[in-house]
């Protein structure tokens, strides 16, 4: 099973979550990133996400595999949208199951942090005012 996926279309969380749940997993932590109506003080009208698909798949899968090594968890998965997204659309989902809540939270946060840092995905924001802009943030210190 691929535990990391790029989706060019709207995807459902429910079946992804189902796959993570089992009788051994007492804890499930998830994260969802949604398209906000603002970013750094500017009114946002929509987003476009582009990926380098082959490398994104490889790197995303590597992150999940590393999370399964680093944390006491039973399962982890992540799906990231590409293409045009409107306000309120789901951009990314991360789900983690574990025996206990500490590792579930820690791994979930680690995965989204790594995805934002390492996976070749780029966001272009459309604003109420001014030209659309690709975001190429400096790495966080």
């Amino acid at each position, binding site marked *: 099973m691929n535990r990391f996926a790029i989706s060019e279309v709207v995807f459902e969380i429910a079946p992804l979550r189902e796959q993570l749940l089992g009788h051994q997993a007492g804890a499930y932590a998830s994260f969802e990133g949604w398209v906000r109506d603002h970013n750094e003080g500017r009114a946002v009208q929509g987003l476009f*996400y582009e990926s*380098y698909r082959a*490398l994104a798949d490889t790197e995303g899968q590597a992150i999940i595999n590393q999370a399964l090594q680093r944390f006491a968890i039973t399962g982890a998965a992540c799906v990231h949208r590409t293409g045009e997204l409107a306000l309120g659309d789901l951009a990314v989902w991360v789900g983690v199951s574990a025996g206990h809540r500490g590792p579930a939270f820690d791994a979930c946060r680690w995965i989204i942090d790594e995805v934002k840092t390492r996976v070749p*995905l780029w966001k272009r924001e459309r604003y109420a005012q001014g030209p659309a802009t690709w975001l190429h943030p400096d790495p966080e210190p």
Partner: protein
Amino acid sequence: MSVTVLYFASLRDAAGCDRESLPLPASIQVLYAELSARHGFVLPAAKLRVAVDGAFVPWDSPVNDGSEIAFIPPVSGG
């Protein structure tokens, strides 16, 4: 003897295309310097990562005939 170069995000906008075929360069650094001059890339090499044939590699990796080289600007997923 040639390579394919892939462009993404702002580099693609600046290049005006998402890929081009170019003669085998002396090195990846030399290639990016030439492309920056030709396409007006504003991102310095220090801010980019580079991938060859679908895997991240160091900037000083060799390039071979037929390689697919991607310059990876700072990512903004999530």
